[in-house]
């Protein structure tokens, strides 16, 4: 079984001045085991 998520999100980018990341940021790696409730990504 597989679950595919397709979604719209803010473009991820790092502010060169503040070095702060804004927009979408992944929290997983390819092939990683993951449990329900664990983060896939942050905004």
């Amino acid at each position: 079984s597989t679950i595919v998520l397709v979604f719209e999100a803010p473009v991820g980018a790092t502010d060169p001045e503040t070095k702060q990341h804004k927009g979408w940021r992944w929290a997983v790696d390819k092939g990683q085991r993951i449990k329900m409730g664990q983060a896939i990504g942050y905004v």
Partner: protein
Amino acid sequence: LRTALNNSKIQWFHIPVGLGIGFLGAVQFYRVSKREKERQELESEDGVPQKRPRVRPEGPWQVQLMSSLPLKALSRLWGKFNELTIPYYLRVPGFKLYSFIFGVNLDEVAEPDLHVYPNLAAFFYRTLKPGVRPLDPNAALISPADGRVLQFGQIEGGNIEQVKGLTYTVDALLGQQSPTPSITGSTSSDDEGNRGTVPRELTDQEELVRKDEEFAHVNGIKYTLPDLLAGGSKFKKHSDLEDQSVKPSAASVAQVGADLALGEKAWYDILSEDRPHRLYYAVVYLAPGDYHRFHSPTNWVVEKRRHFAGELFSVSPYLQRTLPGLFTLNERVVLLGRWRYGFFSYVPVGATNVGSIKINFDRELRTNSLTTDTAADKAAEEAQKRGEQYTGFSEATYENASLVLGGHALRTGEEMGGFQLG
């Protein structure tokens, strides 16, 4: 006789070889003739398919071999087998053996007495103890299930990369045009078939709440914020669902509504006007030993459901490496909606060894069934009568589930359904 045969000038060895070649040739001729006959039956004079065309996957011999097997029938048979009641005293050793082979953590299972599960199907659809899957409070998106992250990334040009550069389009996965209503009672057509397949700007109607003015604005109807958060009788009055248990809870409506409301503001604060957002995707694979119920990965609203009957292949990592467009061949349920950052879709994809897909708030949905196949064939025939091309899926909308949100509200972590054996 042996001497006579050995001394003969006739090469006897050639006879069985020739017969074998002749037999293979006859089989091939029969297959080609049969395929040609099927093709002629499928197409009318103007080339419009008269029946639902069977998908013929391309790939190496392993895939060709799989495609020749009656996988749907095998899956249903496998499902029936797994629903057979296991003798009481065999249940514990049987489930422990299964757990050992597939890595099930029995300490997490809600029901510690394995005797309670009458068969493998019930054990497969087990629940977990409360609190063993804490939700990340800071994540915008959490994992909907236990599994392995196979792929994730950004969608470029409408294509999703599968593995090793193989791609399939978002349109093929999610479906493009909404079909004319024909199958389910709650099916409806609308003019937004392309919605969500490409990045888009939010429309005025989708600006759910203007926080500064404290009212919700949906499809031209204004609601005060307290009305939205209370989720009171106003919402129930507009529902035409007979089964109220499939309605979103008031808490879900309130939380999702508030989340969408906050999102609108935050969205435009941090992004440039010219290209504010993109489409992303993630693929989570559930192994046979994993917990097979799935949950909402975020606060969002499901607006419509599309059911693709598919050809029901496996979604194993091996086939994902081997077969292009694997996900678009499988039976799948596409849930389309929106979250605080715009379009959101959730696609459970079935597999032969698993069986059916259950959606808790959609009692009409029937997957992996002969009825589904018949309905799909019927839809294809009706589309042909109307002179339209069969879109490949049936569609139902949830717009009556909540008038304010225009769909079924789901909170982060809320159980949505699951994959069942059979």
